[in-house]
């Protein structure tokens, strides 16, 4: 006779576990994480303090959290729209890069122009660049039924090579000793810093406004309803007369545009120029953020802040405790694993029972 566990589907999601699951995940992460740190000979409390509290215990740290979370949230919200409708844009990193290229290109071309319109123009160019790059998989999917997962992902590498070519070649700073970077953008094309001594730039509140707008669109707009129906029951959507191609175009252009905006905000915000390495993989991390946030804008903002915090925390524990980066990776993995594992409890209940012993009546 053996004890065994099995999962039994609930009729409907458990109201209790919707709230309890994340708490349980946090508890399990803290417990297992502490054991991990203790096994490495580090004080677990100090390590957790380094991960979650020290990074944001200064004004600068708190603003850095926003600097890191804003692009993640912006991209993830755009992706979530498509993911709800079954449109899998995996190439946000490429659209981000293209947005930085088009916005940055215009910023360089406008170099000395002194006008308050420069900033809106370059931001718009960034959005359009991201949209244009996302339009390619949209066209390929709607016209040729090419899988957008593959096309959007492949175009990421094309975009990165294009950026590499531009900064090594035609757009290289003539005063930069042939190093691969453009000249710094003019002050008019830079997102102004809002808080002296930090890197909190205009792009961050802008991202907040855009996220709110997308939320309103999803919650209230007819298009949000159409996307949801298409994702849940494509046939029902077709019977209702929703045109799927139009939704594919809409989701890809929206997510591409937001990724483009995030990309240019990165170039025109904390960096101030184009260089071969613009993003530490925001476009890919945003996919995790979108799902971690359950494809809901509020969840996504929280998830983005949380992911950003683990990155900052990873730097802090390296610096103060000498914990290697690999440990940060393991710790991040633990968090994600427990969050997803605990989600099972929302839809299933755990039964403990005894397996009927075979052959014994």
């Amino acid at each position, binding site marked *: 006779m053996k004890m065994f566990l099995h999962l039994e589907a609930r009729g409907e999601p458990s109201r209790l576990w919707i709230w309890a699951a994340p708490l349980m995940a946090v508890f399990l992460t803290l417990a297992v994480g502490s054991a991990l740190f203790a096994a490495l000979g580090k*004080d677990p409390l100090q390590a957790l303090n*380094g991960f979650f509290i020290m990074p944001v215990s200064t*004004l600068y740290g708190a603003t850095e959290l926003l600097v890191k979370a804003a692009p993640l949230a912006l991209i993830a919200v755009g992706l979530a729209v498509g993911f709800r409708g079954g449109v899998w844009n995996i190439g946000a990193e490429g659209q981000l890069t293209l947005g930085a290229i088009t916005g940055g290109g215009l910023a360089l071309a406008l170099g000395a122009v002194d006008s308050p319109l420069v900033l809106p123009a370059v931001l718009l160019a960034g959005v359009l660049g991201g949209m244009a790059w996302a339009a390619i998989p949209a066209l390929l999917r709607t016209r040729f039924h090419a899988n957008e997962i593959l096309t959007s992902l492949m175009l990421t590498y094309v975009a990165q090579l294009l950026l590499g070519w531009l900064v090594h070649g035609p757009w290289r700073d003539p005063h930069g*000793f042939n190093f691969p970077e453009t000249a710094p953008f003019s002050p008019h094309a830079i997102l102004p810093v809002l808080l002296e001594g930090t890197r909190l730039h205009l792009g961050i509140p802008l991202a907040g406004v855009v996220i709110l707008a997308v939320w309103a669109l999803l919650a209230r707009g007819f298009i949000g309803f159409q996307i949801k129906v298409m994702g849940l029951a494509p046939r029902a959507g077709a019977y209702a007369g929703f045109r799927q191609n139009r939704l594919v175009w809409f989701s890809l252009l929206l997510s591409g545009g937001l990724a483009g905006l995030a990309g240019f905000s990165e170039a025109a915000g904390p960096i101030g120029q184009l260089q*071969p390495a613009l*993003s530490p993989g925001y476009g890919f991390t945003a996919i995790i953020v979108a799902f971690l946030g359950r494809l809901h804008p509020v969840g996504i903002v929280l998830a983005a802040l949380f992911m950003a915090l683990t990155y900052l925390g990873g*730097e*802090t524990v390296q*610096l103060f*405790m000498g914990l290697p980066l690999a440990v940060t990776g393991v710790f991040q993995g633990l968090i994600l694993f427990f969050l997803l594992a605990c989600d099972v409890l929302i839809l299933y209940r755990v039964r403990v029972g005894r397996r009927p012993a075979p052959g014994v009546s």
Partner: protein
Amino acid sequence: MKKTLVGLMSAAAVAVGLAAAGGASPAVAADPLKVGFVYVGPASDFGWSYQHDVGRKAVEEAFGDKVQTAFVENVQEGADAERVIRQFAASGFDLVFTTSFGFMNPTLKVAQQFPKVKFEHATGYKRADNVATYAARFYEGRYVIGVIAGLMTKSNTIGYVASFPIPEVVSGINAFTQGLRSVNPNAQVKVIWVNSWYDPPREREAAETLVAQGADVLSQHTDSPAPIQVAEEKGIHAFGQSTDMLRFGPHAQLTAIVDNWSDYYKNRIQMVMDGAWKSEDTWGGLASDMVHLSPYNTNELSPEIVAKAEEARTAIVNGTLHPFDGPLVNQAGETVLPAGQSLPDEKILSMDWYVQGVQGELPK
């Protein structure tokens, strides 16, 4: 709020210090000099960042409890770098080494905000009162391995796995080719750019492609041992990069160009302790031992070839030979520098053209 953070940080610092002391009685000593390192790759990449970390460990060994070091690895050359560098400066570090070209502008930005903290940026060209720069004349070592390659190759085709087409890498390819063709005027160099400093799968692919195109000696300017491993599998030869990679290719590696930052780091830290530190540019080569060659693999190299390599190496150390001695001829066959002159440093530091003997076009 600020105060609590300072408290937390000093508590953390004390705890780290105690942990480092390993239970020794808490000696009453002057505050240790706090030295930070920012690495672009993992400290265990067995290449560029690893070699800087070797330097960091040498510092700890040499100065004991008079220094306290810390590092952050795998820091992206984008917006993240500034935050990491700033965190060092804001946490009471006295000296911060930022060890990749892409950290240049963030280092300068942070240095402006923290005028009392000293910074040293590797391989860049911008300095400030509290920002010094340092780099090594890797190209000197590359000339010597070029000579070895020229004497070893049978196919007269050398494969070169390169990272980014920046002057440091381009001058390395050119110096290698000058050395190569000084002993074997028919040899050619094929270059594949992987657009990364550290990407083992892409480095491996590039190396395999070069071998398929007939290369029987590989050289690399990327940080992982993947190309060496390819050479070992294919039974051909290669040169280690940044660090002695012999264990990854006991037959393949003929020698390696080793970056030696230890002496430099110890020197600079001593200068800070003595109050003698000032912002300057250091560009050391074979003569100052900032670049050296790991022991020749005499199982593979004949004594004659070793002698030839040593001849070139000593000539560079003595100053009788410069890897970029004229005549320098570009790919189009035009003489860029006439005989009897050698290329001045600023031309090496901004090199964006290939010498004759390199195939393909430099990405622009």
